[in-house]
């Protein structure tokens, strides 16, 4: 790797902080262990706590390229692994015919030429194996069908893909894999067993203030503290969708854009849509008071 591996969880946290991601102790330890043991990291947590951002920060901090595979239902090998570029293969045939202009073609050579590496389209998983160093982010793995997990498992175990026409393509060094899940369904135990598991929590008050100030340089210290405190209170309120860090960053961003220097009740009321996404939640927070009871 271009950047030497961090020596301790603390060193990784420092490296992540330089990229603008402030990880807590548990997450830094999880990332460190994943690097050290060469195991995939399985992250779960509420939406908007920074699971995806962690993989991006990890790639930047370790000087690796990030390859992202967004999972969805119906995702199959042609979209996740590789696909042959059939139209180009046909063009290749036609071009060969035209160039020969009636002269006999060497069928065997032509056929061999068809299944050349240049006609193979690398999809994220193959790209991750061919990129070095690489952080592979398999985002929202719970959205893919369970059939997909089976071949993901195989690739994670082997760090190689076999293309029947070409042969085996193996990674020089296996990519560091980060899987995220929102728990819409339970991921297979076989997949989980291969991974380190970490539940990403909402940040504490100080860390959230630090994150807001890191992400929004224009924010005043007072506004950052007040937004973090208000978001923390909202998480205690038993809402349908408690705000994650992503929402509090959005909210603070909206307030900064409106020129707020502190959490002004009127501005807070009109920007509430940036942080709460359910009518019931807005009503609830209005009833309690945004700045607290």
């Amino acid at each position, binding site marked *: 790797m271009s950047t030497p591996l961090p020596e301790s*969880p603390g060193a990784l946290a420092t490296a992540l902080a330089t990229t603008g991601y402030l990880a*807590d*102790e*548990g997450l830094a*330890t*999880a990332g*460190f*262990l994943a690097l*050290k*043991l060469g*195991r995939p990291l399985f992250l*779960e*947590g*509420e*939406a908007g706590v920074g699971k995806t951002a962690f993989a991006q920060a990890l790639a930047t901090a370790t000087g690796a390229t990030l390859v992202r595979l967004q999972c*969805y*239902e*119906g995702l*199959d090998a*042609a979209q996740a692994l590789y*696909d*042959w570029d*059939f*139209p180009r*293969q*046909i063009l290749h*045939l*036609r071009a060969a*015919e035209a160039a020969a202009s009636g002269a006999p073609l060497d069928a065997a050579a032509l056929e061999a030429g*068809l299944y050349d590496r240049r006609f193979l389209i690398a999809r994220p998983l193959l790209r991750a194996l061919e990129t070095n160093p690489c952080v592979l982010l398999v985002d929202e793995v*719970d959205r893919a*069908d*369970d059939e997909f997990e089976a071949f993901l498992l195989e690739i994670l175990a082997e760090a190689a893909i076999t293309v029947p026409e070409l042969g085996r393509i193996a990674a020089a060094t296996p990519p560091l894999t980060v899987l995220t899940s*929102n*728990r*819409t*369904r*339970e991921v297979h*135990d076989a997949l*989980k*067993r291969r991974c*380190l*598991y*970490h*539940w990403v*929590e909402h940040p*504490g008050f100080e860390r959230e203030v630090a994150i807001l100030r890191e992400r929004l340089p224009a924010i005043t210290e007072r506004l950052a503290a007040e937004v973090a405190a208000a978001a923390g209170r909202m998480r205690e309120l038993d809402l*349908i*969708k408690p705000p994650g860090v992503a929402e509090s960053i959005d909210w603070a961003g909206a307030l900064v854009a409106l020129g707020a220097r502190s959490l002004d009740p009127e501005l807070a009321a009109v920007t509430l849509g940036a942080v709460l996404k359910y009518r019931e939640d807005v009503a609830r927070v209005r009833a309690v008071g945004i700045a607290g009871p």
Partner: protein
Amino acid sequence: MTADLTALVVGFARTLRHAGVDAGPDRVQTMLRAVDALGVDERDLYWAGRQTLCGEPDDLAIYDAAFAAYFGGHRPGRGTPFDTTPTLPSVAAPYTSGPPGEGTATDDEPHVLGLSASTVEILRRRDFALLTAPERDEVRRLLALLGPEPAPRRSRRRRPARRGEVDATRTVRAALRHAGEPTTLARRRRTERPRRLVLLVDVSGSMSAYADALLRFSHAAVRRRPTRTEVFTLGTRLTRITRALRHRDADAALHAASVAIPDWHGGTRLADAVKAFLDRWGQRGTARGAIVVVFSDGWERGDPAALAAQTHRLARLAYRLIWVNPHRGKEGFAPLAGGMAAALPHLDEFVAGHTVEALDELVLIIAK
């Protein structure tokens, strides 16, 4: 690594397994490697174990309690995402329950009906609450034969088909075999998959006569579609028992489930339990587009308005919300119980589930 430390880690993993976390030997191996990589102070041990031995959020509370008990320390950092109380499985009451008012003594007494009357047809129409012990065995066999197949939905996955849209990839691939001449047009079609089936079973005291039969029905459903069925029990708290019900053998599955349910035959806080389901599972996707079946008599100790609000939320997420109330099949029943009346306007179907025959009809409704 010293032998002492290895023994310590292995001993801890054993404690954790007893507490209900699936920390198998391969996970213990990973923990040993993680301890090697991190060091041996208490915080390191804590994180090394937590990230290697646990596999789901439910494990974390158990892990924290077991860690505190085994190492005498406390969890560094903040509370767990869900409960502050550890969800250690408690020993539940035996799950076989006699008819209400008669006690379990009737199990051993000679019963008036006699086996000659226990023909399948009569048994199918017999209220679960009124069964005698030999009849119950027969009914259990009948229940095992039910296998609800949820209604299908269109999937995003496509399959080769005779009719449908043109499948460019396969057409061109076939053309390559003929030196680039497209001879036939390959076609593909979207496939159908069964919807997710979510069963919420009320196991409070007022439902105790039906719980065994309903859990057996749930077991049959899980066996039919192990990855597309989720079963939770509602009582004073929410318990996910899908995993326990995946046992092949119904008796073993029910035993495992009864061990997992801490609030068996207790009170009901339906609204809270439904809310816990929606917050932790339903909203994220488990209930989205799913067929959700609630087995409950609707006896709610709390505020009926809260149950109405949560039922409405559930109805908005689910493809179809079916409420099964065993009392519905009885003469003179009116949904007057506070909770039942509150939930009623939000239901797609309201059916009885007190006999094998009624559950058979439920299978048809689920497939509709």
